[in-house]
């Protein structure tokens, strides 16, 4: 990684089944992640992905770019738009890219961008990694 590098796009598909699996593994049973009835009642367009699932998938992209599973030293995101996951077989897809901001002493600072369709779903998303 060198400063200014644009890292290759990685995409991740999210289906309702993924939300159920994540809810169980992460012990996050908030019904807005599995019930359209509850999600629409609180003003959401429908069932949305857990923000922490999005953060986990973006984290996978970061580890893949850095080439190691223990790459992340510091990692922060702001969740700006919900990722709506339709109740069908294809679900939705998020795309993740990054720009290398700086490199020093074996670490790199990345500015991350995550989108769903045309919309950015994270802001101020940054990671410091070993690489």
């Amino acid at each position, binding site marked *: 990684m060198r400063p200014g590098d644009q890292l290759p796009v990685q995409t*991740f598909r999210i289906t309702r089944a*993924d939300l159920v*699996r*994540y809810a*169980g*593994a*992460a*012990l*996050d049973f908030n019904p807005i992640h599995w019930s359209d009835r509850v999600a629409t009642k*609180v*003003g959401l367009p429908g069932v949305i992905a857990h*923000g*922490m*699932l999005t*953060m*986990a*998938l973006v*984290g*996978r992209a*970061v*580890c893949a770019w850095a080439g*190691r*599973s*223990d790459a*992340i*030293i*510091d*990692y*922060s*995101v*702001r*969740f700006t738009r*919900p990722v709506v996951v339709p109740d069908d077989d294809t679900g939705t897809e998020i795309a993740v890219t990054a720009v290398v901001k700086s490199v020093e002493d074996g670490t790199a600072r990345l500015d991350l961008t995550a989108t769903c369709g045309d919309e950015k779903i994270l802001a*101020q998303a940054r990671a410091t990694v070993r690489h």
Partner: protein
Amino acid sequence: MPLDQSFLGRTYPPTPPYEVGREKIREFATAIGSTDEAYHDVDAARALGHPDLVAPPTFPMVFTWAAGNVLIYDPELGLDFSRVVHGEQRYSYTRPVYAGDRLVCVVMVEDIMSRAGNDFLTTRTEVKTDAGELVFTAWSRLVARGVE
């Protein structure tokens, strides 16, 4: 209803240790679609220089969320949980979390504010081994959206 500002700076007692299990790491890694061998294969993790399986970076939400419950469900705080969304999250690691770690959380209320009818609550959670080694610090910002 605005949040009770007197909670600002409050620190909660350390939680009982959470024991990080290999199968929980594998289950979590599978749920986020990762086949990374350091999350699944103990021998592979050791060959990479780790003492045991490595946990993915966002794995700690499995136990830090529960550590914060004592705060966010305290009726005195005044947080309407039905209107809460996760606003921001940060992790700062001293080292990765490993299977076999026994981790103790200390939750602190770092910021409380209201803006445009919404309430914002930021917690800082320091996570150490039961021997006192700092493993990571996590910050979570929750947003309770105002009733329109």
